[in-house]
């Protein structure tokens, strides 16, 4: 009897599982459960501490290389990083090598500049999309204005107050690449290792394990991975955002997957030996 029931369950239409998964993610959006995020990753903490260690007025360069396809994971990371930079009164420069990210960058700064009373040109600057990341990173090592002579709005970049005293990597306190691509490899190769630039990164959960070797050797100072990484950063900042609210949904969905895996394996075992 049990064997027959189990065999029936194994032949269940998989669309019921899709529905179950959809509910496990959708319900926490409608009715947040407020599950706590208690395990802060050491790699995320290192990025946070590195940013905190910079004196006010330091210049950080953010390379925001993500588009809507990875927005749920990377946008909260970018928001948290910019929030911390503004709280610490750091100067922020933004570059991008992904054309689809320009709208998302505008969204980050239009929201946070109002909250923290930051002025474009004085506290932050956005540079236009540039193709060919290798050429740009190589040029920025000697003179940033050789490639970014104008900002996104056509202003002379060198004349902006936010760029005062900034010529190349050695004038920057930290570079953070938030990306859904493999641009971190290029940043490590052409900037981090070559010119001793302190480098950190924010990546999708998929690519997070691949960057472990860079952390172990210190080539990356820290790493924010996926939505969990964004939630960790928001927890450290004490500013819950989309990363934190996503943890509810991720927790429920992960529990569902674990239950299904355990149940299926136990079931198969029983069907085989009953």
């Amino acid at each position, binding site marked *: 009897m049990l064997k027959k029931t189990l065999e029936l369950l194994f032949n269940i239409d998989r669309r019921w599982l899709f529905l179950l998964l959809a509910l496990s993610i*959708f319900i926490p959006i409608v009715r947040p459960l407020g599950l706590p995020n208690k395990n802060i990753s050491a790699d995320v903490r290192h990025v946070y501490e590195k940013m905190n260690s910079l004196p006010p007025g330091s210049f950080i360069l953010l390379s925001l290389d993500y588009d809507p396809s*990875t927005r*749920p*994971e990377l946008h909260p990371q970018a928001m948290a990083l910019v929030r911390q930079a503004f709280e610490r009164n750091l100067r922020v420069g933004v570059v991008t090598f992904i054309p689809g990210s320009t709208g998302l960058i505008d969204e980050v700064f239009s929201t946070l500049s109002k909250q923290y009373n930051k002025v474009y040109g004085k506290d932050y600057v956005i540079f236009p999309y540039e193709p060919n990341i290798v050429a740009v990173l190589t040029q920025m090592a000697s003179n940033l204005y050789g490639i970014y002579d104008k900002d996104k709005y056509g202003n002379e970049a060198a004349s902006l107050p936010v760029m005062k005293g900034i010529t190349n990597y050695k004038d920057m306190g930290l570079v953070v690449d938030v990306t859904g691509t493999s641009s971190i490899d290029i940043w490590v190769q052409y900037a981090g*290792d*070559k010119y001793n630039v302190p480098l950190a990164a924010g990546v999708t959960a998929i690519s997070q394990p691949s960057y472990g070797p860079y952390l172990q050797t210190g080539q990356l100072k820290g790493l924010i991975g*996926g939505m969990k990484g964004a939630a960790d950063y928001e927890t450290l900042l004490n500013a819950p955002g989309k990363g934190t609210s996503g943890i509810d949904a991720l927790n429920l969905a992960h529990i569902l997957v674990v239950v299904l895996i355990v149940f299926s394996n136990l079931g198969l075992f029983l069907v085989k030996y009953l």
Partner: protein
Amino acid sequence: MSHTWMIAGGWLAAGLTIFIFSFLYKDNPFFKIAEHLYLGAGMGWWFQVYLYSIWIPKVADPLRAHQWAVLVPAVLGVSLVTQFFPKISWVSRYGFTFLMGYGAGLAIPTMLSTNFMSQIYGCIQPFTDVSHMTRLGMLNSLIVAVGTIAVLFYFFFSVENKGAVKKISNIGIYFLMAYFGTTFGNTVMARFSLLYGRFDELYSYSGANYFYATQVLLAGMVAYFLVHGLLAKKKPEGGAAN
């Protein structure tokens, strides 16, 4: 952006998301519309990126300013297209030669330094300072060193895989399995995060300020599947029941 356009954008985003997700139930014309629209919009998007972010600012504008040096990379770039024309395809070799030389010259030293020398150094360096290491740190460094050597043994094909070599390469397999498991787990988490992102937007568009776009479109999809299912039952020979 005007309020009307925001609402229209919300309906479009919610509609296309629901149309794409409807494929999980079964193939349907709404999914096909969204799929083709995505491909077409993607092509259009990249065309304007190449035109307005590369060709105009990097080639046309400098030429208008009489900076003739840009002709060299521009001609080399255009030469790549000649490979589609057999009679003059030999011209593309000049472009490829430049790409190969430039690419290899830039990549080989940096790759060797970053991904080869630095990683070997990272593997050995902790053991040069054992007296200052904690027990956990030492264990961690040992695991990394053993894992690296064992996996390298697994990918060393010039010695027959038997005896001690087989045992070490088997340990390497366990390290690889642990890596693949971690990556797969993270992939699942990443996909759920993306799903959360879409659902979060659908929830945003379900409010009165968007005239309940999500609910209306979802109800429309359900109605379509119900009607389609009923019609398919009436004509079993033409139906595509699941």
